[in-house]
């Protein structure tokens, strides 16, 4: 199942791109599992995604915890805690 990934702030900078299409294996069914799977891709990914405490996510443009299901979703975003306002 193809998922559109989007990255923001220093997550985007560490990975070196603002998004990509990924196709995780079938046993990757939650946001947290997706993060772990992506973190294995190499240095930039590990730096961006290695510390879940500093990481937040959204599934189909709604904030989601790491145990949220990603089955059937189209877009997943990863980013630092927000700092707007």
């Amino acid at each position, binding site marked *: 199942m193809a998922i559109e990934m*989007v990255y*923001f*702030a*220093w997550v985007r900078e560490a990975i070196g791109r603002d998004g990509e299409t990924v196709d995780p294996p079938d046993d990757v069914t939650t946001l947290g599992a997706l993060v772990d799977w992506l973190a294995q891709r190499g240095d930039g990914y590990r730096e961006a995604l290695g510390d879940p405490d500093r990481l937040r996510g*959204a599934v189909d*443009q*709604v*904030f989601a915890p790491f145990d949220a299901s990603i089955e059937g979703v189209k877009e997943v*975003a990863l*980013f*630092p*805690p*927000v*700092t*707007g*306002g």
Partner: protein
Amino acid sequence: MTIEIRLQQEQFDVARELALLEAGDAGAVASFTGIVRGDDDVEALELEHYPGMTEKALTALAEEASERWAVSGLTIVHRVGKLQKGEPIVFVGTASAHRADAIEAMHFLIDRLKTDAPFWKREHLTAGGARWVEARQADEAARRRWM
């Protein structure tokens, strides 16, 4: 009930936003304006956001506020892109027949906007370079007040 939500790079006009809220025969209008600050080593601020999600997140907050308080108008304007120190960055305004509803809905919106809308601030330094602003524990504590 009028909900106005805008993301924009250009400066906004607080007077115009307030005039729109006051025009509704509401009786009470409350507003909050956030202004770009920064330590002496900061030259400017840059606001990144999540196009597609940001307006949805702000609309969800506005709808929650309109369910919890008796408000007749809600306005949220948030700037994105590069801002200079001293410039306004965010405006939240509310209109109601009752002052407590206007003030509390405004307070809720700015507190929750800080934790529940996908914006990220980067400080451009006078000495060159830039750093991402860290999220504040105090904002998370303020969020819990509304749970």
